[in-house]
Structures are given as C-alpha cells and as structure tokens.
C-alpha cells in the first residue's frame, strides 16, 4: 500500500501525528498557495487567513497537550452556502454579498470541534443553482485542468480548490449533482450522502427535500475520514436521520469480491461522449477484476429525472428564497418609496438571472390551477423514480455509470442554453430524487480532461460506497493525477497526467514527502 499523498487529509493527519510539521505550518502552506494560485481559479470567495492561523495554533496546542483528535490541524474549506459565525456567508449572491452569519452550520461546528482548520469559503453558483459555477456574483470558477473550462457546479469552488491543492478537502452540497458533477469534471472524489445523513441546519436552502451536504476530496479515504466527523443525527434538522453512523474508515479495506454491480444500458449509449464511455467502461472492468460481478438493470423512469427535478427543485426554491426581501438583512435596493417597490427592486437587483429563472418557474409550478399538472405530477414521478431504485437494489449492491455525459465544457458555452446546462445533471439527479447516496470517483481521462465514475448506493450505504471507491483507488491512480496548472512552476511533476492508466506503470502519484514551497506561476486568470 502506498503512503497517502502529503497534501491529502490522511497524509497531513499522519504528518501532524508524527510531528513532521505543525498545523500552523500546514495552514500557512495552504494559505500561501491560495494567495499565489487562486487568482487563476477564483475558487475562494473569502479566505479566513487570520482565523485559520488561530485555529491551527489551537490545534497545535491541543496536540501538545495530547488532546488532539485525528483531524486536528487538517485544513478544510467550506462551500459558501454553509453559515459560518462571524464570517460572511454569501451563497455566491449579491443578495448576501455582505451577510455575516450569526451562527455556525452544524457541519461547520462539527468539523471545527474535530479540530479542523477553516481556510475560507469557496465559490459556488448563486444559491447553488447551476452546473458550472458561472452564475456566482463573484465571478466564474476555472477548472484547474483547463482554465478555459468550467469546474462544474454548483460546488465548483470547492472542487477547484481541492483539485488545485488549495485545500485538502472541502465541504460541498449536492441538490441535483452539485458535488458529483464538479468532482467528475475536476478529477476528484465527491460523495453525496443519503438525504438526512448530514445535517442541513445552517446550510442555506436551495431545494430543501434535495439539499444534502457532503465532501470533495482527493480520495475515498479522505472522504471517509472527514465524513465520520460530520455525519449524524441533528435535532435541529427535522429531516435528519436518526440512525447510527457507520465507521467509514474501518470499512474502507473490506474486500469487494462478490459485489453486485448494476449497469444502466442507456448510460453507455450515444448520448455519452466516447471518451467518457471508454473510461467508465474500463473502470467497471477494474472493479470486475477485484471480484465484482456486473449485470444490467433498468431504471424505467430515468429519462424523466431532469424534468421532474426541474419542476420540484425550483418550486421549493421559489419559496425558500422568499425570505430574501430586503426587509431584515441582505441587499436592499436604494431609493424605493413603497414596500412593494422594496421587494421588487431588492429582488430584481439582488438575484442573478438563473436564480430568477428558477424562482419564476417554481412559482408557476405551484400556482393555482397548475399545481396538479406540474408540482403534483412531478411528486408522483419522484415516487416512481424512487421505486425504480428500490427495485434495482433488490438485485444489486451498487449502480455504476458515468457521473456526467461529457467532461468539462467551455466557460460560457452553455450560459445561453439552460436546457443544455441542466442536462449536465442527467445522471446525477435521480439519486437526489430518490434520496440515495452516491460517489463520483476519478476514472481516467477523455482527452486531457478528467472523467468521473459514479457509484450509487442504497440508503445509508455510504460505507459500502467508500469501500468500493477505496478498493478501486488502490487499484488505480487516477485520483492521484494533478492538473499541471496547479503545480508550482519548477516543482516536480508529482502526479501522473492525463494519459495514464491503471496502476502498475510506475510510481506516479506518490509525491515526495516534503512538499516544496509554492511558486506562483506566471499565468494569470483569463
């Protein structure tokens, strides 16, 4: 077994435990990289440097006293949809551009309590509505693998930050694919837990019955280490699941021989780019090589996933975003002379195009006379889609397929075509509709761009997904590949690049134990 990469969660935690470096050194190293490199990617909206140093010192103190937990001193970045007390929480919107949260989200609180060090808040599509992180009020995020391309969305900032080595792990949220799709596009491991596994308290709502917090990291192991700290029942979230939390870390190494994998035929057909199909097909064969068996399954209602999702999620969003009215907090349009005008102008100016599009669509779907035809019908389809999965999981343990039909597309390409943008989520929304868990794992490259393998599990099967993903990552090294752009100029090319294959071909990925200091690359942002 290879030692974990030194800038991974596992690598940093091990180094801190051995005393190779201090938490403060780690924090300073990442802060310096952010300072030097993030102008290329725009992955952070807010960098909390002082707080990070302070928290790192506290972690070092705790370690000296012997009271540090495993993750104490490991940095993390939070998607700027999670409330952070005393730190502005913008949701990528002009509406909340200056909103300082009054409390910590449960996820933030739990990770802080575990000793993790907050580097800052990452960029996202406005209120998490988007698949490219181009709808952010704070500008688009660029994909570290190709700055001309999107990092995916809505958790594009979290994905770009981890891919570029500006954070070892980042929290993210997934309403229709917002963790898995950017994970796929940025070559990361991204887990969307079962609905209710991670508390939504303090997670600013987009579509409440879909939203779920999760993680973006390099490896399944890193996800497992952090997920264990943030999953669990929260009495402050009525939809949170009161079920015991598995020991994700302990189950990573279990053999997967006999694992039953289901494949959905349509996900390997023409609508999917050839490079993606090939990479995912090869990944499935790796799993077969590890003893898994493969069988075809049918998801009868898969083709109505997108319309169902785009009926229900905007309906919930139209109501959830009503509170942003300029009355109590957030953006208030100046120069208005009536309450009516205050609402109209604050919301017209405070929200971006995509958010307004969804509010309008959702309002329409809930309107008198249309409710049954739209919202009501979509709810019934949602149940049918969930039934599809329930039946499938009577026959298989996980469902495997591509996370997205294409790798990262060009910035701006789909901005004028919302339907094309929405189709980026065609393979991911079903999981949210059914409330299941799924993980996207790096599975190779289509040309120079990363491809994601999506593994979908039944309710509360996170441990199994992480186990399968980890075994896959022990057999491959796609997850160790690093975007060349994120390498400091003059640094050793550590990871393998896009033309790699499965492990066996050398020592790629195991970077040296001592990380050279970052050197800002000359290349600026587009």
């Amino acid at each position, binding site marked *: 077994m290879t030692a974990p990469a030194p800038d991974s969660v596992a690598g940093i935690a091990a180094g801190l435990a051995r005393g190779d470096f201090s938490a403060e050194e780690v924090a300073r190293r990442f802060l310096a990289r952010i300072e030097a490199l993030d102008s290329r990617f725009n992955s952070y909206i807010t960098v909390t440097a002082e707080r990070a140093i302070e928290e790192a010192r506290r972690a070092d103190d705790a370690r000296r006293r012997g009271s540090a937990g495993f993750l104490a001193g490991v940095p993390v970045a939070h998607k700027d949809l999670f409330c952070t007390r005393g730190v502005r929480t913008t949701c990528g919107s002009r509406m909340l551009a200056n909103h300082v*949260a009054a409390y910590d*989200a449960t996820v933030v609180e739990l990770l802080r309590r575990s000793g993790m060090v907050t580097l800052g808040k990452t960029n996202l599509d406005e209120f998490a509505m988007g698949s490219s992180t181009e709808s952010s009020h704070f500008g688009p995020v660029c994909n570290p693998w190709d700055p001309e391309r999107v990092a995916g969305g809505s958790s594009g900032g979290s994905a770009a930050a981890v891919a570029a080595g500006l954070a070892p792990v980042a929290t993210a949220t997934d309403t229709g694919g917002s963790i898995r799709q950017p994970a796929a596009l940025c070559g990361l491991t991204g887990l969307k837990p079962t609905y209710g596994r991670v508390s*939504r308290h303090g997670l600013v709502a987009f579509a409440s019955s879909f939203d779920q917090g999760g993680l973006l990291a390099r490896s399944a192991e890193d996800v497992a280490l952090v997920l264990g700290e943030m999953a669990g029942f929260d*009495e402050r*979230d009525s*939809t949170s699941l009161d079920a015991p939390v598995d020991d994700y870390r302990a189950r990573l190494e279990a053999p997967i021989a006999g694992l039953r994998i289901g494949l959905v035929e349509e996900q390997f057909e023409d609508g999917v780019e050839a490079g993606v199909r090939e990479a995912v097909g090869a990944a499935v064969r790796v799993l077969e090589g590890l003893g898994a068996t493969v069988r075809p399954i049918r998801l009868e209602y898969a083709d109505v996933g997108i319309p169902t999702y785009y009926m229900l999620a905007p309906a919930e969003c139209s109501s959830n975003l009503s*509170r942003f*009215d300029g009355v109590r907090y957030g953006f208030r349009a100046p120069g208005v002379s009536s309450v009516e005008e205050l609402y109209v102008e604050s919301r017209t100016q405070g929200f971006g195009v995509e958010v307004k599009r969804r509010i309008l669509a959702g309002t329409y779907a809930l309107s008198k006379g249309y409710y049954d035809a739209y919202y009501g019908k979509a709810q019934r389809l949602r149940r049918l889609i969930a039934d599809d999965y329930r039946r499938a999981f009577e026959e298989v343990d996980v469902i495997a397929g591509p996370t997205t039909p294409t790798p990262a597309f060009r910035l701006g390409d789909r901005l004028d075509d919302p339907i094309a943008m929405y189709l980026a989520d065609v393979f991911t929304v079903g999981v949210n509709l059914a409330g299941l868990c799924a993980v996207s794992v790096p599975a190779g490259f289509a040309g120079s761009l990363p491809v994601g393998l999506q593994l979908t599990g039944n309710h509360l099967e996170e441990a199994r997904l992480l186990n399968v993903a980890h075994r896959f990552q022990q057999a491959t090294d796609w997850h160790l590949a690093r975007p060349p752009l994120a390498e400091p100029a003059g640094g050793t090319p550590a990871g393998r690049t896009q033309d790699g294959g499965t492990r066996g071909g050398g020592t790629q990925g195991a970077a040296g134990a001592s990380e050279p200091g970052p050197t800002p690359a000359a290349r600026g942002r587009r």
Partner: protein
Amino acid sequence: MNAWQPVIGLEVHARLLTRSKLFSGAPAGYGAAPNTRACAIDLGFPGVLPVLNREAVRMAVRFGLAVGARIAPRCIFARKNYFYPDLPKGYQISQYEDPITAGGSITIEPAGGPRRDIGLVRAHLEEDAGRSVHEGFGRGTGIDLNRAGTPLLEIVTEPAIHGAAEAAACMRKIHTLVRWLGICDGNMQEGSFRCDANVSVRPAGSQTLGPRSEIKNVNSFRFVERAIGYEIERQIDLIESGGEVVQETRLYDPDRHETRPMRDKEDADDYRYFPDPDLLPVAVGEAFVAEVRDGLPELPDARRDRLAGQYGLGAADAAQLVSYREVADYFEAAAEAAGSAGSEDAADAARLTANWVNGELAGALNREGLRIDEARVTAGQLGRLVRRIADGTVSGRMAKAVFDAMWGSGEEPDAIIEARGLRQVTDAGEIEGLVDAVLDAHPAQVDQYLGGAEKVLGFFVGQVMKRSGGKADPRQANRTLRERLARRRDEPPAGQTP
C-alpha cells in the same frame, strides 16, 4: 319582500399556551420589548430550520378530542406563501391538506333558542406572523417579530351559523372550551383569541351559498355580534337594492359600527400551498392520543349536566358555573364546605352556594377586575358562610355584610360573626320579649291589625328588627308576631277592660 337566511362560518385563532414557539425555542407569550423574543429561526435567517414543538401537537389533540374530532394519524405542515413585511420567511407554516384534527362539533344554546350542534370543519396548527408597528417611525414602519412563530390553533366551523347572536354564542363556547382545556388564555385584548367571520346571505330555503365577505380580527364577543349583524344587513340591503355582494375581506370599525373593505395582502389569494419540505409528516400515534385522552378534564357540557343533577341547580345557574373551569371548581369546593351532600338541606345549601358564586362573588370579582383564582374569599370560606346562612346563624342580609368583611380582611366567617356580634337572634324567649315590647309600644297599630289591617305586620317586623339591631331572625320574628297578635285577639292583656 324576500326572507333572507344569513350563513356564517367562523375561523377562530387561539394562541396556544406553550412555553416556546411552534418551530423554535424562543419564548412564546406577549408583552416583551420589541424583537427580544425572536431567535434566528423566527427572524427567518438564511439556513435555519423549523423543529416542531411537541407540546403544541398535544394541545391540538386535546382540543380535537374535546370536540369529538378525528385525530389524523399523519398530518402535514404546508407553506402558505405570500410577501408581507412582518412575515419573515415569505411564507407561513400552516396546515392545508391533512390538518391535525378534522370534524367534531360544539353545542351552543343561543339565548332564547334551542340547543344546537355546530359542526367543525377542522382545527389546524400554524405559526403566527409578527406585527407591523406604524406609530413612532415617521413615514416608515417598524417590525416587531416577538409574535412571529407563536403557535396558533385555527378552528374552523362549518358555515352552519344563521345569526349574529348564534355566532357570538359559538365563539363564546369555543372560548370557554380552549380555556377550560388549558390550551389558550383567551385574552382577546392581547389577541390570544381572535375571530374572523365569513358572512353571506341567501334566500330562505336555498341550499347554495352566496358570495361571502370575510370580517377580520374582531376582538370581542360584542363586536363579533355587532359586526356580523351589520354585515348581514348591509348584504341584504345591497341585494335588495339591486346590487351584488362581492367576495372580499372587510374590517369592522367598532367606533363607526360599520365594516369596510380591506386593502392588503388578501388581494392576492394564491398562496401556492405546498407541503413544507423542512418538516416530515407528523405521526400522531394511538398511544399518544390515548395518553392525551386520559388527561382530559370533565368537559364543560358534561360538567354542567352533572352540576345540575348532583346539586339540583337550575339550568341557568349550572351553565353560568361552567363558563370557566375555575368557577366550577370553586363552586364545588364551596358547596362541599357549605354542607354534606345528600340531604334536602344540602340541596338548599348547594343552590344557595350557586347563588352566592354567581351573584355576590362574581360581582365582587367584576368590581375589582379579578379572576376567580385571585378572589379574596376562598371557596372554603364562602362555603362556611353559606353554612351559617343555612343553619340560621346569620340572615342573608347579614351574610352580605359578613362577606364584605371577609373580602376585606380574609378572615373566617365565624370569626367575623363573633367579633361583630352579627349572630342572628333565634332564641325563642328573646324574640318573644322583643315582640311583646314592640306590641306594647304600639297599641294603636295592634288595634289596626286586630281590626283586619294585616299589612301592619310588616311594620311590626321592621320594629322588631330595629330593636334587635338587625340581628333578629326575620322569619322567626314574623312567626312570633302572628302568634302573639292572635293571642291578644283571644285574650286581651291584663289591665285592659272591655
């Protein structure tokens, strides 16, 4: 001229007496400085989530069981979407389809009318909004969110009420019930108990409903009756003069005694209700319902009937005693102290007790604006006073003086009777002495009486009372006077020659 039938349905909002709000831990209850009883959830901050207050569910179930409603095994909270400055989230969490209770009825006895059951459509839980404050902010408006998130039980009657007095009776009945159950303090000034009335009229005999107007937030029984009365007349006048009633919301102005159309959020009547995805359906289990049922007190109607039967009270007295549970409790405690149950005398004592509770005590409480649990005379003390009336120790009139003294000092009746020498003179010899002295002092009146002017007897009674300092038992004085006068007719006193 047509005969019109008014059709009225009520929507009563009762603020539930929970310690905290319906979906947050902030304290519920009125009266604090603005915005000091509102937490992040009540303010609708980004990222907050509602968590249902179980106590509010218990109270709603309590009400449902008391009116014989069906308790939904699974009820759903829905969002009612509209923009208003004092509605922090841009939606109110309420119940739409699948309310916590459905059906049931209450019985009303309108003055002069027969007893009637009014069906209930439903009772559901919802959160209250905040308040807009228009004074003191110049051209602006202040927002106080203390009330935001306070639990309300909205009780909806069938449109089965056919007059203003019936509507008021119905509202009173619900008012009594929610306080009786301990789920609402019924304070109408503070808005803890509010009523909207849907009013329409139709030709007598018609089964279809006419267009209705909704009269909002009427905060007293009297105003409900007057507002509805006004609205019925307005609609009839309008139709008879060739106009049409439009469906609208109207506000009652008690100063001008009229209703006026209201211009506000109600204009937009598409609330886009949908199930609140932040709250799972609430399962109300059979065990929970059974537990609530076991904890139900004897209900007002049952208690009224029992009081009437057990104590031999008149219907009006019994009904008045159950207007508040505390009054009924007070009465029963006082009746017990007044005399042991079972005998003829005990029934007299109970009726006397009822008179005192509904009369003197109610008057004293009213004068000082006190609730019965603040009464300065305890139930035991009142009962012991009644006992002294029943056993002839004091007359009814003397008892009033004793009661006043008790009210002022809190002392026991016997102590006051003793200390003030208020004990009634019942000793036969003593009364005879008084009577003889009076008759001797007024020979002319004796002659009148003996000559057939029996009404002079009242004069003698008055003189006896006067001589006794008011302590003579008037009944006994009366009896003795008749006896002594009769004797004088038969055998004139010595020394008197025919």
